[in-house]
């Protein structure tokens, strides 16, 4: 008999059992309930509900705005994370704490605040609306609210990775003749790429399900600025439980496919690094 490995957590059976039980209770059973409920409709009715113009427009807005917000946050979140790690400036710790505020704030508060700022007589809206930029009650407002909600995910996933980044790498690239852009493209970006992708995925999935902050600033005009979670809520209020769960299942399937795709992308990146033997 060979000596057994020391395990911090007790044996495979017990740990795996807890994992499955927990996942089932918290995630899988509620989700399956949604699936079962929507199955009551039957496939044709399901398809009909999901493909109504109002629902399609809402799904497009929810996913489109979430993706756009995640991408914008990826750029600016990177810059913020970089500044927080690399630069020393007075008030750095305060800025660092502010990053977490969107986590802590009830999202409805953020929604109300954003609406107050960007509506036609708000501080910012007053200035930009005469210039032709309308933010409140448009899809732009939705993106803005989702950017607010998603920022900490990107910054917090990037910070530790940037802190771990060996500065000598940039020095090495510089002495080898690389410009800033080349150093960023070939040295920094590949190193932070997996974390950036994770951050984006987190921010994106959070944004897809976001409700509280969006409904105030979106204006909720059907076919224009109405998001999918709101359509679900409306259906629920109309006691259309079957239709509501159908839309929910559609969202779930799309989200799951996208998550799988992002995971696949990360795995592919890691494989590509490892497999070149």
């Amino acid at each position, binding site marked *: 008999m060979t000596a057994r490995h020391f395990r911090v957590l007790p044996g495979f059976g017990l740990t795996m059992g807890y994992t499955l039980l927990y996942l089932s209770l918290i995630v899988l059973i509620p989700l399956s309930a949604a699936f079962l409920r929507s199955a009551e409709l039957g496939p044709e009715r399901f398809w009909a509900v999901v493909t109504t113009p109002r629902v399609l427009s809402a799904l497009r807005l929810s996913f489109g705005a979430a993706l756009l917000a995640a991408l914008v946050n990826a750029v600016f979140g990177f810059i913020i994370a970089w500044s927080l790690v690399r630069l020393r400036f007075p008030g750095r710790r305060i800025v660092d704490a502010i990053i977490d505020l969107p986590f802590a704030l009830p999202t409805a508060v953020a929604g109300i605040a954003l609406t107050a700022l960007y509506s036609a007589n708000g501080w910012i809206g007053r200035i930009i609306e005469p210039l032709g930029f309308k933010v409140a009650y448009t899809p732009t407002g939705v993106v803005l609210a989702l950017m607010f909600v998603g920022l900490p995910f990107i910054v917090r996933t990037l910070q530790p990775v940037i802190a771990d980044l*060996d500065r000598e790498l940039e*020095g090495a690239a*510089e002495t080898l003749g690389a410009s800033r852009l080349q150093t960023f493209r070939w040295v920094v970006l*590949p190193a932070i790429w997996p974390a950036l992708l994770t951050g984006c995925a987190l921010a994106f999935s959070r944004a897809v399900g976001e409700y509280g902050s969006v409904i105030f600033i979106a204006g909720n005009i059907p076919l224009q600025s109405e998001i999918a979670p709101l359509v679900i809520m409306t259906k629920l209020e109309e006691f259309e439980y079957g239709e509501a769960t159908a839309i929910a299942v559609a969202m779930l399937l799309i989200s799951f496919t996208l998550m799988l795709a992002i995971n696949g992308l990360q795995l592919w990146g890691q494989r590509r690094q490892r497999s*070149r033997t």
Partner: protein
Amino acid sequence: MSIDFERISKRYGELTVVNDVSLHIASGEFFVLLGPSGSGKSTLLRAAAGLTGIEDGRILFDRRDVTHVPARQRGVGLVFQHYALFRHMTVGENVEFALRVRGVKHADRARRRNELLQLVALDDFTNRMPGQLSGGQQQRVAVARALAHEPAVLLLDEPFGALDAQIRVELRETIRQVQRRLGMTTILVTHDQEEAFALGDRIGVMHNGRLLETGKPEMLYRHPATRFVATFLGAANLFLGELSAGGLKLGQAQIAAADSQRASGHGEAVTVVRPEDIELADSEARLHSTPLCSGHVQSLSFAGGVQRLRVQLPGDSAVQSAVNLANAAPLVLEVTRNSSEQLQLALNAGQRVAVGVRRVHLLPTPISSFRILADSAQDASQLRNSPLLNQLATSMRARIIDSTASSGEGNVTQGVAVLAADSRAIPTIAAALARGTQRLLCIPAGAPLPRRVVICTDSDAARPAALALVASVMRHLHAEATFVSVQSPAAPRGDVAGSFRRLLDTRAELLESHGLDVRTDLQVGALDDWLARLAASEEQTLIVLGVAGDAAQIEATLTQRFQPLLGGRCPVLLSCSHAPVATLGAAGAMASAQEPDQQLIDGAE
């Protein structure tokens, strides 16, 4: 490509990490910057690479100023201690990086990459990831990568620091061969003296941001000029010897002039004896070299080809250590013996041995020791604990000797006498001068560590000795030195031009013969008034005052002109030169004081 550093200074906030370093490295030379961690050597290297900006000075490549040229345009190859390989690229892609950023065609890149990997014997590893390689292999990749763009300068920042002993030696060989073959000017930064000896055409030793000495490895080992270099570059036993016309006296032993270097001059001298230059025998009669004393073997250890011994001298030995010993601990010598010596005489711990000296080297430093002159033990300890004396003695590794307790040592002619700057200073100085003391340090109670050094002399005759003293002191202080000439307002206009010329000459002389660069300042007024005002107003200034004359003249000068100075808030370092017509012995002592001139610069000999 030749490299010139001209008066490089680099500060991080309050801390000066590189302090006024000037250095010329010839084209194709392999230069090693050696120093303990924190000595500023890596900063200097990074400044050469362009990765660190500098506050003062210029860097020239082939006499072209590159101080403000960005790193990517300098055309240097830099190898880091922790490799800094791009982990997400293969070995081949790492090596090709410099070519890729320059837009070189794929085929040419591949050809050059194969050449370079062959050069470092890693041609089978092109498609591996760096993480799959051992430390030594990774560092070889880093070397190949740094050579891809055919740099004319190769900079190596502790490249062997993270490697095992055996791999180190292999990689050392690789780097030496590559450097020879490609003929690049190379600077290696290391704290390992063995590496420095093995690789360097020339070595520069850095300490506290200063470049102390440069020279060929053997030259620096055999003829160091400073205590720091003597002890950092290999082990050394440092003694205080007494030079006279007959040669060098070490304890009771008289070493003939022929056996010691530079056995001219007079007075106390720091004597370096390397561990391999000490001979051990079971009795004095069997020694082949000059007998020094007897002692007993404290411990011995095996170190490959040689045996290392520690030999303890009896407490009453007349041999004086030049470094501070803790609480009157007995003097312990470091000795190494080769295998034939071991065969001739087997030794065990505890055994009594006779100690002989084969070869000694005298350090040309004008500061051989600090001798405290104080009336009471309390005053003495106050002086001993003053920040200035502490800093100087620690940094120089010089010994502080209490002349109060053992006032039997009447013949204190050399070393620096240290006394409190108070009302009794002048009589104490006069007494010391009468005994032949030439250098005195007066420290006011509570004086902080100086940030500025001001140098003045009352006559041209006092200048050479004062400058030698300043050069020695400045290497151990983080301060800025200014040579001040004070011009009488009554002097005619022509004299002002002469004063300016003298200032510039002095600066050139300091730079030329001591490697020390100072600022210059011309003041109008009377020297004594100006100094008294300075001493009263500023605390953090060390005033170095050179005066000339015989003992009585100097005493008179001090009493009449500089009494307020000695009661001020600034520490004062007095350099007393005897006038040219003084006794022969004193003139000799002056010559020895000037001797760092020849050696501190570039190991010239």
